[in-house]
């Protein structure tokens, strides 16, 4: 029995408390495993560019991407098993409310990428038109749900005014099959695919009604305290990749084909359009900077939805101090 306990103890010590963030001796690259929260996709072009052109390596970082689920990435950073992750703004507030010491240090998506797509014959032109509709959503959690609530709120509606079906990531199929009248989607992705398959859609964009915080780079308080330079290097190299992709979208697409399996077989017109639409959401007067108003909106929305009980200290939720 004692042995079993010791084994368990050892497992916990090794997995739970091993220092992961420590940079190695000068000259050696710091290994960074970066969860991005989605499958390999053209939208991660800035990361692929920064990897391919050696921006990370020049900053002393050896970055590999991890395509696991967003919440797992946030939890791993919160537990200090990883230094960085890509996550949407609301995840940071939700995680902090549960005591995860995570901080958002680079705002990648300045505009919230969620929206509602529907066939033009449904006549959904404003959020108020959602009333009485049957709407598919991946699940009642995550960015899709938060964004959808923001749209309902903008239309003066509540969840009881619509029929909401949790359909997983099957929005394209559900809309085309007529199972749903509308679906909650990522504005840069599903509408382009639907359009290309001969099913044009109207899109209500959350970003047109409420400014929220989209995907960005997060880290934890331990890394911020012990290795602030590492955070600065990471944000600088990532921003360099972003700027480079914005300046040379065609080259960014070409580079991405090396990292996204099957991208070279997909329709380049569609994929380039997804990239172009994504880029529109990144643009800002100062690339990567978080806007205070967007964070306040996010906090208010989450409080109103009952997803958090207490307001969080926004000065700990995000920081612009680690940007170049």
């Amino acid at each position: 029995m004692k042995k079993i306990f010791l084994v368990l103890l050892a497992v916990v010590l090794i997995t739970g408390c091993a220092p992961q963030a420590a940079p190695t001796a000068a000259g050696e690259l710091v290994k960074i495993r970066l969860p991005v929260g989605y499958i390999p996709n053209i939208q991660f072009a800035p990361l692929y560019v920064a990897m391919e052109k050696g921006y990370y390596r020049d900053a002393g970082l050896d970055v590999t991407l991890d395509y696991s689920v967003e919440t797992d990435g946030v939890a791993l950073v919160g537990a200090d098993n990883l230094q960085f992750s890509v996550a949407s703004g609301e995840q940071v507030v939700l995680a902090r409310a549960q005591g995860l010491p995570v901080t958002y240090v680079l705002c990648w998506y300045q505009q919230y990428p969620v929206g509602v797509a529907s066939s033009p014959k449904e006549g959904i032109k404003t959020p108020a038109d959602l009333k009485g509709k049957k709407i598919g959503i991946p699940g009642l959690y995550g960015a899709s749900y938060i964004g959808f609530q923001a749209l309902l709120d903008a239309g003066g509606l509540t969840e009881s005014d619509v029929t909401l079906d949790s359909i997983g990531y099957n929005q394209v199929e559900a809309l085309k099959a007529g199972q749903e009248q509308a679906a909650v989607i990522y504005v840069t992705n599903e509408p382009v695919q639907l359009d290309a398959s001969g099913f044009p859609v109207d899109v209500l964009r959350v970003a047109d009604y409420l400014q929220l915080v989209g995907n960005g780079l997060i880290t934890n308080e331990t890394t911020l305290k012990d290795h602030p330079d590492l955070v600065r290097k990471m944000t600088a190299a990532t921003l360099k990749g972003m700027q480079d992709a914005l300046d040379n979208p065609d080259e960014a697409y070409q580079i991405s084909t090396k990292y996204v399996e099957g991208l070279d077989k997909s329709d380049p017109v569609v994929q380039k359009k997804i990239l172009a639409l994504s880029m529109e959401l990144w643009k800002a007067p100062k690339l990567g900077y978080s806007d205070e108003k967007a964070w306040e909106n996010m906090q208010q929305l989450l409080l109103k939805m009952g997803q958090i009980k207490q307001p969080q200290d926004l000065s700990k939720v995000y920081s612009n101090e680690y940007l170049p």
Partner: protein
Amino acid sequence: MDGKKKTHRGAAHFLPRPGGWLALASLLLPLVVWQVLSSMPGMTAFILPSPLRVAVRFGEMLADGSLLRHTGYTLVEVLLGLALGSTLATFTGYALARSHLLERMLSPYLVASQAVPVVAIAPLLVIWFGPGLFSKVLICALIVFFPVLVNTVVGLRAVPQNLRDLMVALRASQAQILWNLEIPAALPVLLGGLRIGATLSVIGAVVGEFVGSDRGLGFLVNVGRGRYDTAMVFVAIITLILMALMLYGGAILVEKRLLRWEA
């Protein structure tokens, strides 16, 4: 029949029944280890919540009615899936046990179907049959089907040939052989399959709820993860375990009742 009887009884109780103090220890020891682990330095509630914290969350969710509602929904899926899967499996199993030709034709497909991870096809089933109750029941039925089928075939094949010959010699009809010999003789093994199916069905329901659902215990796990509320994930998982134990116990009760003649 004496030798047979013993194996049947053995099959019905392959897990030893713990004595009073042993049962208490087996309940308490994991709790103590859990409490110690959760109070170790650096261990925060979102990594491993303490048993107390989980108990409090359990009470909260019980009080606001959410836990019962979601449990009820999952239980409906599980029971319907179990009924559908085991019924289909029993009929298919009977057909396979009777016909070697059919068995040779179908068995490659049946075995191959077991190589398909349910997690991988669950999203497809949700697309094909919609996000409602039916797709979840179907996923439960799929996961239950194979063990019940195998046990049905094994059970029926194990009916002693001399008894069969006796029935034939007495000019019993097919229906009489089935009713008076095959079903009673195969029942212990068949019910063993049902017991495995009952616990598997719980897994099926959760897999279905993970893909697309707005209720059920699998959905609660997802919500808990989405809010970084690890205690909520624990509450859902513990409830799932209790449900599986209850179904297992229920299957044993059914077994005892149906197999009273053996005693």
